[in-house]
């Protein structure tokens, strides 16, 4: 059951839907009654990519699932930045794409991965397989900046090695149905993972940030912080699952998900799950869904700041915590600017 299989076989019955536990809140089957025709090949866009301010050493452009590169091996040594630009240039057609990313031992890569689309009503699936060598370090910044009528699913399979560090921040603005999955196999041994997320949704946009992280051996660390702002009739979904397998002792895992609903009618579905089969672990999760603090809002307004600006200030502060955790400075600045721009549209 997957979108990629349904696209490849043009068989809508292969689509997952709300009867599948993992897709309960993102009913792909309900949204897509039939699989559209295959997207044609298209040229790379002439426009600048999202987060264009970040200078990259290498660039891979995937258009309608097609790319000249199927496998990228990061070079060892000095830190490098790779831009992966996933583009849909399609009108009511469907496509899927794949990329393998390998980080040799000791390599250090920042991945700027952006999803964008021109045209309308397209269906896109993209898969990324990441394998990390010992001591490798990857900071992955994913921006899902897609049209409101797109259906877009992306998933990454991440294999960590001992002493490697995987840090991820996914920023999503939703689509008709947008889902981003991250599956991480965590080998412990001092390896660390950070899985952060941020969604800012309006109108009828839908996003689903799903993560499944499995601690397979002792001494692993995971931190996770996802925040969301949801307006109008938009819907945010957070599914975070951390599994600590038997014997994965001294695992330290923390998960937080916090969302603000900006009006009645906005919706957030959160499913934090901790499955622990080891004895000596430190795991915690916190999950809150609320609204803007009216007392704080009045306080700010009473100082002379008009209501719309006061709301924007509180929203920016709320999501700022996630942005601040991005380590790559140019990427952090670019994300902050993108978020500020998005919030201006929201308030």
């Amino acid at each position, binding site marked *: 059951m997957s979108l990629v299989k349904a696209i490849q076989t043009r068989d809508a019955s292969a689509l997952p839907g709300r009867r599948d536990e993992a897709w309960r809140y993102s009913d792909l089957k309900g949204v897509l009654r039939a699989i559209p025709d295959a997207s044609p090949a298209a040229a790379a866009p002439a426009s600048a990519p999202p987060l264009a301010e970040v200078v990259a050493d290498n660039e891979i452009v995937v258009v309608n699932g097609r790319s000249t590169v199927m496998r990228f091996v990061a070079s060892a040594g000095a830190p490098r930045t790779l831009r992966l630009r996933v583009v849909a240039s399609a009108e009511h057609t469907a496509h899927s794409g794949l990329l393998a990313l390998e980080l040799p031992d000791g390599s250090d890569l920042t991945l700027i991965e952006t999803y964008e689309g021109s045209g309308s009503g397209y269906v896109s699936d993209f898969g990324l397989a990441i394998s990390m060598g010992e001591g490798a370090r990857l900071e992955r910044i994913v921006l899902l900046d897609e049209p409101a009528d797109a259906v877009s699913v992306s998933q990454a399979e991440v294999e960590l090695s001992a002493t490697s560090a995987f840090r991820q921040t996914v920023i999503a603005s939703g689509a008709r149905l947008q889902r981003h999955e991250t599956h991480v196999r965590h080998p412990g041994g001092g390896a660390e993972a950070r899985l952060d997320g941020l969604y800012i949704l309006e109108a009828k946009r839908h996003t689903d940030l799903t993560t499944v992280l499995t601690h397979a051996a002792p001494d692993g660390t995971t931190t996770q912080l996802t925040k969301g702002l949801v307006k109008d009739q938009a819907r945010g979904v957070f599914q975070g699952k951390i599994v600590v397998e038997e014997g994965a002792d001294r695992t330290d895992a923390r998960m937080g998900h916090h969302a603000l609903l900006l009006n009645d009618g906005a919706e957030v579905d959160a499913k934090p799950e901790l499955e622990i089969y080891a004895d000596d672990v430190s795991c915690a999760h916190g999950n809150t869904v609320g609204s803007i603090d009216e007392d704080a809002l009045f306080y700010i*307004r*009473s*100082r*002379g700041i008009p209501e719309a600006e006061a709301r924007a*200030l509180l929203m*920016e502060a*709320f999501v700022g915590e996630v942005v601040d955790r991005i380590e790559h400075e140019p990427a952090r600045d670019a994300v902050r600017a993108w978020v500020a721009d998005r919030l201006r549209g929201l308030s």
Partner: protein
Amino acid sequence: MLSINNLHVSIGEKEIIKGLSLDIPAGEVHAIMGPNGAGKSTLSYTLSGRSGYDVTEGSATLNGEDLLGLDPSERAAKGVFLSFQYPLEIPGVPTLTFIRAALNAQRKARGEAESTAPQFLKLAREAAAKLKIDFEMLKRPLNVGFSGGEKKRMEILQMAILEPKLLILDETDSGLDIDALRIVSEGVNAMRAPDRAMLVITHYQRLLDYIKPDRVHVLAGGRIVASGGPELALELEANGYDQYAQAAA
């Protein structure tokens, strides 16, 4: 300067302020004292425009201009400043950023030039030094993790920078030890000016040892039931509010 006439305020169905009239001329400090539940906080929130406080009758004007039809930020731009009993924590917003945003929003609303970053920093440094506030503290998010005394000092700092026309101090002494009370009071006293009015709302006479009022009013049952000079506060301290609670009933 501030003129309140026959003010009636309800929260939901319940009338809290029941025909309150009060004039504070420019340059004067007036204290409102009263027992718990008399409507002291309701008065300060009503004057600053908090939603949920419905004015059913009466008026409040500042220098002849109606206040009650304005939203909170417009009132601030006209010169109203409420010092909160419990100042809010604003996570993620550095104190300096916040105060500058407030100052420039007010200036913009009044059609004045905005304060540039160097101008603002100079202003903030001077104001912080007077209040014995470590400037480094102003880089931290506003009030987050600050002690009660520090939060009140931040209120006074904002006042000093925003230079309001009408100061409303709502139970400013609550949660302060003697040293903090003295520093905060000195800050308030430094704000006294011929073109500025102050309304000091307090339950206890103690604050008025530090901030000397020109007039003292007793608020009970939603009305002002007695007015007098500073000696009235001392009398309240000696005899309590009982006689006024009966008068209001």
